[in-house]
């Protein structure tokens, strides 16, 4: 039981990074739809840099650099050029996926460095939870930090309040002297760095190595999880763990349900998207809205300035 739950936590870790990063960027009002491509290209780059230098740290740095660069392109296009964020993100996704295949060709099948595993003293001895949460690798621990830090930043700090302000009411924030667009750059690029870490968390920690399409569809799922999580990092993390659970379940069922074993790996993606569809259906939305307790768990209202450009003049 503990081993299964621990493998769910490990499987969900890259998605936690990606979903938390995207949540921060979208809270500021910018959709980085390039997530699918960003994760793929940073997984490849992170592995290549790690392989060449023999250092996982260099690999992570390279992966984060790629994530930040792609996020900067999205931010520049939407803030400076006032282009459609969906269009730019979609093009970047296709471009980055192809680039990862093209540039990653010679690294396929190589063995590179990996993030060390480390049990946390004392905490690992907590009954049950210790074995699930605290006998993992550093990438997993980093994801806990990312979730807690993002949640306390967004909901408990003054800067977090400003972050929510520029996503909800950019005009009002601007009128109060807040440099809306500069902060949108900052948070979009920060989100990109976390998406880059998601890529590295695949190729240097969870799936080890590079092959074509290593992270296929995980970026789309991360985007869905952000909505499922109602733009709240903690709820998003739960969405990621739910997806991890589906993945582990599909893996365990594969030897049992031989008739459909080939489509089982696809099922978590289908179920996750339909979970998203379900929580958005009108009758259910009305139900969440009428019960405050359910509302906190299920309701998801996007930041009202999401996807729009803000022009100070």
């Amino acid at each position, binding site marked *: 039981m503990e081993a299964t739950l621990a493998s769910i936590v490990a499987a969900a870790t890259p998605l936690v990074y990606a979903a938390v990063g995207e949540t921060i960027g979208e809270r500021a009002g910018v959709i980085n739809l390039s997530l699918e491509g960003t994760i793929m290209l940073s997984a490849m780059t992170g592995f290549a840099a790690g392989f060449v230098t023999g250092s996982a740290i260099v690999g992570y740095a390279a992966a984060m650099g790629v994530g930040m660069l792609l996020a900067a392109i999205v931010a520049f296009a939407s803030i400076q050029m006032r282009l459609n964020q969906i269009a730019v993100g979609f*093009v970047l996704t296709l*471009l980055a996926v192809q680039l990862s295949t093209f540039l990653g060709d010679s690294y396929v099948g190589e063995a590179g460095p990996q993030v060390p595993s480390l049990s946390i003293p004392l905490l690992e001895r907590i009954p049950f939870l210790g074995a699930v949460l605290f006998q993992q690798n550093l990438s997993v621990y980093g994801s806990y930090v990312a979730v807690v830090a993002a949640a306390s930043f967004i909901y408990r700090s003054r800067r977090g309040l400003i972050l929510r302000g520029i996503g909800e009411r950019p005009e009002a924030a601007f009128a109060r002297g807040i440099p809306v667009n500069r902060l949108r750059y900052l948070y979009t690029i920060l989100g990109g760095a976390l998406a880059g870490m998601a890529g590295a968390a695949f190729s240097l920690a969870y799936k080890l190595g590079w092959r074509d399409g290593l992270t296929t569809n995980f970026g789309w799922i991360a985007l869905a999880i952000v909505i499922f999580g109602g733009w709240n990092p903690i709820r998003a993390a739960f969405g990621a763990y739910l997806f991890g659970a589906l993945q582990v379940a599909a893996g365990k069922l594969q030897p049992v349900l031989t008739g459909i074993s080939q489509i089982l790996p696809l099922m978590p993606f289908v179920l996750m998207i339909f979970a998203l569809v379900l929580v958005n259906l009108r009758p259910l939305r009305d139900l969440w809205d009428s019960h405050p307790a359910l509302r906190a768990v299920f309701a998801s209202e996007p930041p009202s300035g999401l996807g729009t450009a803000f022009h100070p003049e």
Partner: protein
Amino acid sequence: MSREGTIRQRFSGPSLRGIFGRAGSLLLPIALALVVTLLLLLLIGAPPIGSLRLLWTGAVGSPGKLADTVMAWVPLALAGAGLVVTFTAGLWNIGIEGQIVAGAVAATGVARVVPGSSAVLIPLTLAAGVVGGALWALLAGVLKTRGNVNEIFGGLGLDFVASGMAIYLIIGPWKRQGIASTSGTDLFRREAWLSTVGTTSLVPLAVALAVLAVVLVYLLMRGTMFGLRLKAVGKNVTSARLLGIPDERYLLAAFATCGALAGLAGAIQATGVQHKLIPAISGGFGFLAILVVLLAGFRAAWIAPIALFFAGVSIGATQLQLRLNLNSALGGVIQGLLVLIVILAGGWQQRWRSRRRREPEAGAEDG
């Protein structure tokens, strides 16, 4: 996601100035994309000029290759024409990949069970593709209009379901005689194959249908009340509703039209190219067609030439793999770079113009 974010849509016809303006605004980005591609080739140690020449001869170097390029153009043009309709309605039909698959699955179903000669079978398989694709698209449409589900995620989910369905059919009920394999179903009966020219892959019927689709969509958007109202819905759904346009019906019609054309593309892939159902029957043409339409600035008149260029790059790139052992993803890299640079350059031009317009003297010779 909000409607304010929809791309600036311009649907003016191809006036002379428009054509030169568009071509001019394309030349610089093409040159830039070329330079970046050359740098990439140098980076991985491939002969840059030789690679590009191989790309060209790989696309048009022989009648056989030219036929392959034209046959890659067919699904791009069909899907692209369909996407012009959904984009006009302000919709991001990411579900188009699934619609292609649904069309291919429907066509395969008919090809497997319907007896008779080509004269009966071929119209039926193609019609099944059209219906299958349209119904699959309507699912995404109903999820959007009734379920309040964003079409990007609804479509994505349906993409996953469609590919799962195809794989299930291929290894399950429609498995090959004796052995189930993900390499595809048995070949269809000969009567279901679309006929080709000589030994090439060229299917004249498929090309004719694609040309017809592009022309029809062009006319639909240019000269009909439907096109005009669809534009109104796409630009501002609330004011369209206030003007008395039944917006839900228009949105669903846009989905169904796009799905029908995508489904036709899928049916052609199955009956005219693969002659069987394979898991990757869409070949990524749906997503690639989204790039084509973005590059075309959402105008039907530009779909045909841009789709042809993209088809050539895709087919030519396979030669790089065969001859130079370069990954054929280079084709996709070139396509993606080109669209990214064109979009960014378009944004830059818009900003530059609007800045000039604010200065009264310089604003006169705008354009």
